[in-house]
C-alpha cells in the first residue's frame, strides 16, 4: 500500500472479485478499513523500504490476505506430505496417526483456499525443504513446530487486515486448529511446552506477525518469489 488511490483500487478489486454481502456492518467495515489504510500509508511512508514489485503477486485487499494464507498452507501441507513419503525412524503409532491428521488438516486448508480463491488463486509454489532432515525426528518436529507457531502468529496478525467478517471467522476457524497442532508438536518435543514463554508474551497472549515478518521467515522454504507489496497493512 504505497499510494492513497490504491485504496480505491482495493475497493474496486473487492467488489469485482468476490460476492459481497453488503450488510451495514460490512459496509462500515469497508469504510473503516479504507480510512485506516490512508492513515497508515501516510504515516508509515517515510520509513518504509521500497517494496519489490516482481514475483508472484499475492494481490490486494481480502483476496491478497487469502492468497497469503494459501501460500502458508501450501508450505505446511507440502511439508507434512513429504514427512509421510518416508517417516522418520522411531515414529510411534500415536505420532504416525496424529501427524497424519495434521497433514490432512493442512491439505484441507490448502485446498479450501484454492477453491475459495478460484481464478484469483496464486499458482502452486515451488518449495525447498532441503534444510530439513526428514529421517530425523528432531529435525522434522523442530520444523513442524516452527511452521505451526509461525502459522498462529501469521493468522493472528492477518485478522485485522481482513475486511469481510466472514473471512475473519474463517481465519479464526483455522488458526485455533494451527494452535492445537503447535501445542501438540511442542509437547512431543518437550512435554509441557505447549504454551511456554517462547510462544507467549508476559500477558499470556500469543503473538501476531505482519505478512512481511512471516514471509521473511517462511522465505527459507519458498523458491518462488512472492510479491506481498499490495497486501493491506491495516
Amino acid at each position, binding site marked *: 500500500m504505497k499510494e492513497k488511490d490504491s485504496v480505491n483500487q482495493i475497493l474496486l478489486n473487492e467488489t469485482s472479485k468476490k460476492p459481497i454481502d453488503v450488510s451495514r456492518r460490512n459496509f462500515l467495515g469497508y469504510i473503516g478499513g479504507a480510512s*485506516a489504510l490512508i*492513515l497508515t500509508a501516510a504515516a508509515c511512508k517515510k520509513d518504509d523500504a521500497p517494496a519489490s514489485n516482481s514475483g508472484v503477486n499475492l494481490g490486494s485487499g481480502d483476496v491478497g490476505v487469502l492468497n497469503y494464507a494459501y501460500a502458508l498452507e501450501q508450505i505446511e501441507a507440502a511439508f507434512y506430505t513429504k514427512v509421510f513419503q518416508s517417516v522418520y525412524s522411531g515414529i510411534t503409532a500415536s505420532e504416525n496417526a496424529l501427524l497424519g*491428521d495434521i497433514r490432512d*488438516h493442512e491439505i484441507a486448508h490448502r485446498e479450501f483456499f484454492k477453491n*475459495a480463491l478460484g481464478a484469483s488463486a496464486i499458482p502452486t509454489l515451488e518449495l525447498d525443504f532441503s534444510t530439513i532432515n526428514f529421517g530425523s525426528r528432531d529435525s522434522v518436529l523442530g520444523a513442524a513446530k516452527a511452521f505451526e507457531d509461525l502459522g498462529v502468529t501469521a493468522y493472528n496478525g492477518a485478522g485485522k487486515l481482513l475486511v469481510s467478517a466472514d473471512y475473519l471467522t474463517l481465519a479464526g476457524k483455522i488458526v485455533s486448529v494451527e494452535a492445537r497442532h503447535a501445542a501438540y508438536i511442542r509437547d512431543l518435543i518437550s512435554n509441557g511446552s505447549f504454551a511456554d514463554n517462547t510462544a507467549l508474551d*508476559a500477558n499470556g*497472549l500469543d503473538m501476531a506477525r505482519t505478512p512481511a515478518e512471516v514471509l521473511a521467515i517462511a522465505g527459507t522454504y519458498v523458491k518462488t518469489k512472492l510479491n506481498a507489496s499490495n497486501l493491506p497493512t491495516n
Partner: protein
Amino acid sequence: MNINSIISEIEKVDPELYEKLDGRRAAMKSFARFSGKVAVAALPFALGTMFNKAYGQTPSSTVIDVLNFALTLEYIESNFYIKGLASSGLVPSGPGMNALMTIRDHEAAHVNFLRTAITASGGTPVTFTASQFDFTAKGTFPDVFSNYDTFLAVAQAFEDTGVRAYKGQAPNLISNNDVLTAALNIHSVEARHASHVRQMRKARGADVKPWITGNINGIGAVANGNYAGEEITTQAGINLVNVNGFTISAAAASEAFDEPLTKDQVVALVTPFFA
C-alpha cells in the same frame, strides 16, 4: 513510525485535530498520562482511547461488551484452575500439575490484561469472586474437585468452549484492530490449552485427540451443547471431504476447522457454573 508522525499525518487530513485534542501539547500530555497509567502491553488501547476522544467516538459499547464477556469467561477459567489446584489430593504432582499451573497463570494473566484493556478503553470491567461460582454446575459434576478425570473433562469443555466463544466474537471487533488482534492472541492460547488438556485426558484413557473430531466430546451427553456444530465438513460452500481428489475423511475435514458459538449459546452453557 511514531506517535508524532501519526499525529502530523492526521493533521494533514484533519486540520482541526488539535482543536479536538486541545492542542498538540495537550495531546502528548494526554498520551503520556495514559501510558504512565497502563501496562506497556496495553499501550495500543490507550492510543485508541485518545483518538476516540478526539473524534467523539467513545469506544463502541459493542467492543466493551465483548471484552467484558471475554473477561467473564476468563474469570470462570481462572477460578476453576485456582480452586482445582488448591484442592488437596486432586491433582497429582508431576507434569500434569505443572501444566495446570501454567494454564491457571495464563487465565489469571488474561483477567488482568482484559481488565486493563477495558479500563483503558473507557469501560468498566466486571468483577467476579470465587464464591460466585459453582463448578459442580448445580450438581452435574459433583466430584469435579475430588475426581481428577472429572476435573480434566470440565477443563477440556471450558477450553474448547472458550475457543469457540472468542471465535464467535471476532466479527464484533472487526472495526477495532488493536482489540481484535489482542482477542485473537488470547483465542489461540485457549486452543493451545485445549490441545494439552486433551492430551492429558488421552494419556488417562479418554478417547480424544488434541483436536475436535466431529461433535464427539469424550465427556458425555452433558457436554453435547459445547460441541454442537463442530461436526460440519463444508466451509463457505466448499465440501472438504475428499476435496479436489485428496483423501480427506469426514473426521479430518471436521477437525481442520473449529467452529464459533454465539454469545447466547456460550452464556447458556456457562450459566450453570454460576452459584
